[in-house]
């Protein structure tokens, strides 16, 4: 007998609560466009924040409202942009896929160690302690703050220098924000020409601390036919909109700090 009463009580409570739920759902119903949900499903979903939004949910909402460009997801690239374009029924031109690169070639072989840093193994902490791990005050510290920040395991530290694996890098730019020396930059993925030095020191000073640094001689600027490479503040930098990837600058560079195009 007892078991029947118990079952009945539970059933009655179940019906009341269930009905209350149905009513609440109807009363507080919010219309969401199913396309927004579809965009959300199309996005990679790793919530990296590289698009500038709080995460993939926020990005989907912003895209749907037209507040963010439909090709704005740097991780998804062309395929995701195309899918979102189909959902929204418009043609979307894929954004130029970007990849990060480190503007320093100062591995242990070419720079002099200056001090032995002990403490929290984090580049930002080391910079704050004011101790120069390598002789160059502009170069990579190599304690791997960028490596820890990278959600895609695309950064490795070798010989005290950060390297970015282009096949893994999605161009989210989280490492760019982390580097205390602002050494990491994003460049179009298909461009290989890159100046791997950030030293603003004059030539002789650079030579003193690193054998692979940009001395600001300006030979690359002279040899460039499209005017894409400029020396400013004793360091060369490339304008990727003008660069034709001819590779002449890399051939001419006396300290071999400009990397060659893949075809060369």
């Amino acid at each position, binding site marked *: 007998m007892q078991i029947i009463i118990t079952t009945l009580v539970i059933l009655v409570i179940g019906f009341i609560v269930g009905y209350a739920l149905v009513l609440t759902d109807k009363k507080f119903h919010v219309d969401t466009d199913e396309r927004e949900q579809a965009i959300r499903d199309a996005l990679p979903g790793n919530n990296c924040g590289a698009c500038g939004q709080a995460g993939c949910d926020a990005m989907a909402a912003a895209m749907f409202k037209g507040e963010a460009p439909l090709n704005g997801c740097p991780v998804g690239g062309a395929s995701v942009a195309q899918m979102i374009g189909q959902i929204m029924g418009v043609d979307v031109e894929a954004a130029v896929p970007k990849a990060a690169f480190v503007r320093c070639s100062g591995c242990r072989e070419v720079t002099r160690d200056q*001090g032995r840093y*002990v*403490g*929290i193994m984090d580049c930002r*902490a080391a910079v704050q302690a004011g101790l120069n791990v390598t002789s160059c*005050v502009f170069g990579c510290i190599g304690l791997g703050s960028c490596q820890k920040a990278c959600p895609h395991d695309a950064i490795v530290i070798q010989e005290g220098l950060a390297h970015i694996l282009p096949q893994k890098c999605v161009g989210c730019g989280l490492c760019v924000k982390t580097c205390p020396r602002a050494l990491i930059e994003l460049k179009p993925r298909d461009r290989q020409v890159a100046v791997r030095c950030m030293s603003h020191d004059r030539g002789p000073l650079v030579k003193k601390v690193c054998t692979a640094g940009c001395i600001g001689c300006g030979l690359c600027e002279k040899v460039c036919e499209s005017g894409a490479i400029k020396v400013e503040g004793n360091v060369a930098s490339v304008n990727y909109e003008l660069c034709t990837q001819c590779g002449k600058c890399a051939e001419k560079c006396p300290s071999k700090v400009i990397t060659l195009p893949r075809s060369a």
Partner: protein
Amino acid sequence: MRDTFRGGVHPAEHKELSREQPLRDFLPEGEMVFPLSMHIGKPSKPVVKKGDQVLVGQRLAEADGFVSAHVISSCSGKVKGVEKRLTLMGTMADCVVVDNDRQFTPAADYTVKADVKDLSGDEIISRVQEAGIVGLGGAGFPTHVKLKPKDPAAIRYVIGNGCECEPYLTCNDQLMRTRAEAIVEGMEISLRLFPNAEGVICVERNKPEAIAALKKAASGKAKIAVRELATKYPQGGERSLIRVIAGVDFPLAKLPADVGCIVENVGTLFAIQRAVCYGEPLYSHVLTLTGDAVKNPGNYVVRDGTIFSELLTASGGLKEGVTLKKAMCGGPMMGIAMSSLDVPIQKQNNGLTLLCEDAVEIAEGQMTACLHCGRCTTVCPMGLMPQMMADSITDGDLKRFETKLYGLECIQCGSCTYICPAKRPLMQLFKQTKTQIMARKRAEAGGKK
């Protein structure tokens, strides 16, 4: 009367290495390098150019803005130019480089004592400003700014800080022993700016000679007292001192002047006396060269811009057969680790400690996880909970660090790191996090404008 604050640690003092060494003048021979930023605030603007002849006491760079101080030449010679040189913080910074002619010709006669009884408050402050005086306790805050609070009548105490709680350092001890009268006079001059203030010179009990000398110099002066305080680190911290003398705690966002206190290092008081009575700008100060790697530890009156390595070589260099493992500007608790000794001495530097063993390196080898023993909480002079603060940082919960645990109140004294049996680098973690939060706040404030 209480003579100390809650918390604190007792690190091995090692003051015996240099405490009986009298102050010696050190006249450098090599070129002198004067960084344009030897103070908190904006770097100064150079007023000399390449080829100019300068004299001791002449201005090399002018203060740029209110919170800034002049840079004064400490040698005579020819200006080599304004160049990028390696400075203490490990970065290249603009410095005025002077080719020292070793004559040390002064720009004016600094030996005649002027009568300053009729000087008005504004004149005193302007003389301090002209002399380029900054706080010699370590932070390098321009003194003329400190002496000009919003309401001078609200200041109750002018505290002369002669605690020197930092292990190894003894130069202020020697300064107090030998220049007690000048320090007391510097205090008297400062007191004239604040009608309702009394002067208290605080010294830790481990310096009996200095206390006796100061008491003798201050006897008969109604408004000046000398207080003996317990020997404990960080007794000489600004906030610890105010806690003891005025009995008030106050948040970091406020200045000591907001609770009616002005804290000046005894070295600064001495510099004020020199500047006001003799018209001598601040170009030299006391510095202790010490550590178990040094052959002849000692106390020196050094000139700004001297290269650290030159002082070391002239003193006799390192002991034979030892390798230098750790070099610090200042003492082991608050000092800055140096990667090179070829950097210039700045106004606010008061020690060079050279050790055969790197304590941090040894500690790093023994580092373990937090034991939750709570010792860091017992020693924190600010009453914070370092262990929970560290946890919140590891969890990435900076909001909790800031609002629940008051992490920004940390004065970075290093007591928690010193006492931690698990050898965790707590202080460095807090310092880094604090900088991160402050940078974010500045960015947000900038965005609103």
